[in-house]
């Protein structure tokens, strides 16, 4: 009976786990950091219930009229002091009583100020007895899935899958090469494919924890929607992780020192952090570079994850990003198997 404990594939995979779990920094970057980032962004970009603009007016009737309307908080202030408050940003608009009318002082380039100008004028005209020419009423919606946090969670997920795969493989392999451990393994009967496979296997097992913790958090705390099939989402995560593992393997296949590997990793990942639409839509980049942006694995991954989670689009309609990810899985993997330096 060949017990599991004597199986080299098992031992290699368990070793990868041990080494990962005994590296507190790695644990932080893989598990804690994405959650902190999501919390930070969630707080910074949370949708405030009703944005109240602070405004000032030089006469009591104007103050009363503006406070009666929606979305303004008006104070009584003289023109000189008001101008100072405007300049320091404590109010965005100052309504100055003029003989026979009112003048608004505000910065036209500030959207909040323009908004306040409309609201203030509406309130003052209404108080003066203006009637609506067309009757209007409001029917408010609060759509989850349209918020920034909903947009950014799939982006962070993609970014995290990229980072953990590339760092996880790249650094471990190059470190083993630098410390002559790869050479020592090659001098033993260890099947070489098992060494590489142990990285993929441990990566997939960690993926379950990593994705589960992050998405569970996003769901419970922010109520981020999961509109698509969960099993298809799982498939996309696995595919993404494998593609970036192949890329990590390629980066690590020849580098002899950690410094060289580190430089290569940043060179590969930095453009994707910027271009692939983690924090804002990749469509904002000019049309000339769109083909490049679309061909990046992280763009494909994030597009597919967003389509699944936010729009509930089925995998069968995500052929393009899945094909890009598959290409990034197969080509780097084949190349790295050919050029891998075992010593």
């Amino acid at each position, binding site marked *: 009976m060949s017990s599991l404990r004597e199986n080299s594939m098992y031992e290699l995979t368990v070793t990868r786990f041990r080494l990962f779990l005994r590296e507190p920094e790695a644990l932080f970057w893989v598990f804690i950091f994405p959650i902190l980032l999501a919390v930070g962004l969630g707080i910074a970009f949370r949708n405030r219930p009703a944005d109240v603009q602070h405004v000032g007016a030089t006469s009591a009737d104007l103050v009363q009229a503006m406070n009666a309307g929606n979305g303004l908080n008006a104070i009584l202030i003289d023109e000189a002091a008001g101008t100072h408050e405007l300049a320091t940003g404590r109010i965005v608009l100052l309504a100055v009583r003029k003989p026979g009318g009112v003048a608004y002082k505000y910065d036209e380039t500030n959207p909040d100020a323009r908004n306040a100008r409309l609201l203030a004028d509406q309130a003052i005209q209404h108080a003066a007895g203006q009637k609506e020419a067309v009757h209007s009423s409001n029917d408010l919606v609060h759509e989850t899935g349209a918020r920034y946090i909903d947009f950014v969670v799939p982006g962070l997920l993609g970014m995290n899958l990229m980072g953990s795969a590339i760092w996880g493989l790249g650094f471990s392999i190059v470190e083993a090469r630098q410390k002559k451990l790869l050479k020592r393994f090659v*001098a033993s*009967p260890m099947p070489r494919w098992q060494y590489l496979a142990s990285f993929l296997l441990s990566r997939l097992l960690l993926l379950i924890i990593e994705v589960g913790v992050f998405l569970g958090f996003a769901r419970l705390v922010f109520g981020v929607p999961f509109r698509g099939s969960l099993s298809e989402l799982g498939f996309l995560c696995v595919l993404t992780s494998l593609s970036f593992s192949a890329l990590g393997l390629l980066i690590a296949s020849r580098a002899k020192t950690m410094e060289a590997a580190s430089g290569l990793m940043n060179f590969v990942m930095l453009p994707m952090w910027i271009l692939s639409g983690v924090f804002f839509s990749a469509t904002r980049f000019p049309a000339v570079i769109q083909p490049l942006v679309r061909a990046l694995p992280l763009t494909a991954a994030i597009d597919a994850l967003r389509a699944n989670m936010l729009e509930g689009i089925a995998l069968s309609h995500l052929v393009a990003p899945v094909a890009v990810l598959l290409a990034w899985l197969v080509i780097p993997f084949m190349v790295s198997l050919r050029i891998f330096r075992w010593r």
Partner: protein
Amino acid sequence: MAESVTFSTNAATGLALSIKGLRKTFADVVAVDGIDLEIMCGECFGLLGPNGAGKTTTIEICEGLTTPDAGTVELLGLSWLHAARELRQRIGVQLQETQFPEKLTVEETLRLFRSFYRRGMSVDDVIGLAQLEEKRRSRVGTLSGGQKQRLAMACALVGDPELLFLDEPTTGLDPQARRHLWDLVDHLRNAGRTIILTTHYMDEAERLCDRVAIMDHGRIISLGTPPQLIASVGGDHIVEFAVTKGDGNIHPLEGTALTAIPGILSHRVDAGLHQLSVGELHTTVPRIFSALDDLGLHPSEFRTHSATLEDVFVRLTGRNLRDE
């Protein structure tokens, strides 16, 4: 394990290793320049030479880690070209400079290496053999240099190899750790294991090895048992001294003045120190004193020792082993 594999060492010839016409060049450097060598099963064989002599290249070709430019290597009657998988199972290797993962424990590291072999020692046995019982659950990062080296040895032994390669096993260790490792090698050797080791310590080769090949510039310049090699120096004893005139300054002295003395077999000067190989101390030393006296010179730092492998190397190359 269900699989029970019995290996027979190459009983027909009893050859553990056979090398013919081995050559290897890196860029413009000729690392191995035509080596022929045969090592018998059960031997503890040493490759001795200074750094850069080609020892590591030679042993790594034997370990199947480097492919030679020319020549053939057979281990246990098998070649790397045709039986690499089987050979990997049957040899044990300890390399220079391997750093095992610092965050694994001794036991975990050995269990990992044990899993690569179809048959071998139990992890407990090999821990006992390498005397690492107390460190079994310690992380590799906390081990001393000697303990790390014993772990490397344990990893080489865990597959119960028929042929064990040790590349500079004691380099960088303090004297006590070296002696500890020597005891371990002694133990393995007495148990009948075939061992091939490289070293640039002549005392190590003398102490551990049944036979020694002295290497220099990619060639074997001398081969035999340590006593045979020492006898080849031509004298059993070495006399060393500096000479001063009355003023206390070191005085240059022509070698011919010394080699003319009967009983002196060879002479060389190393950093102002005259080194003579001598057959019989009790007749030759008085002659040296009187010859110096006649020249008005005073010997200082006068000492004698039995010839060692170091002297063999010096005699053959005109250099010290550790000059490089």
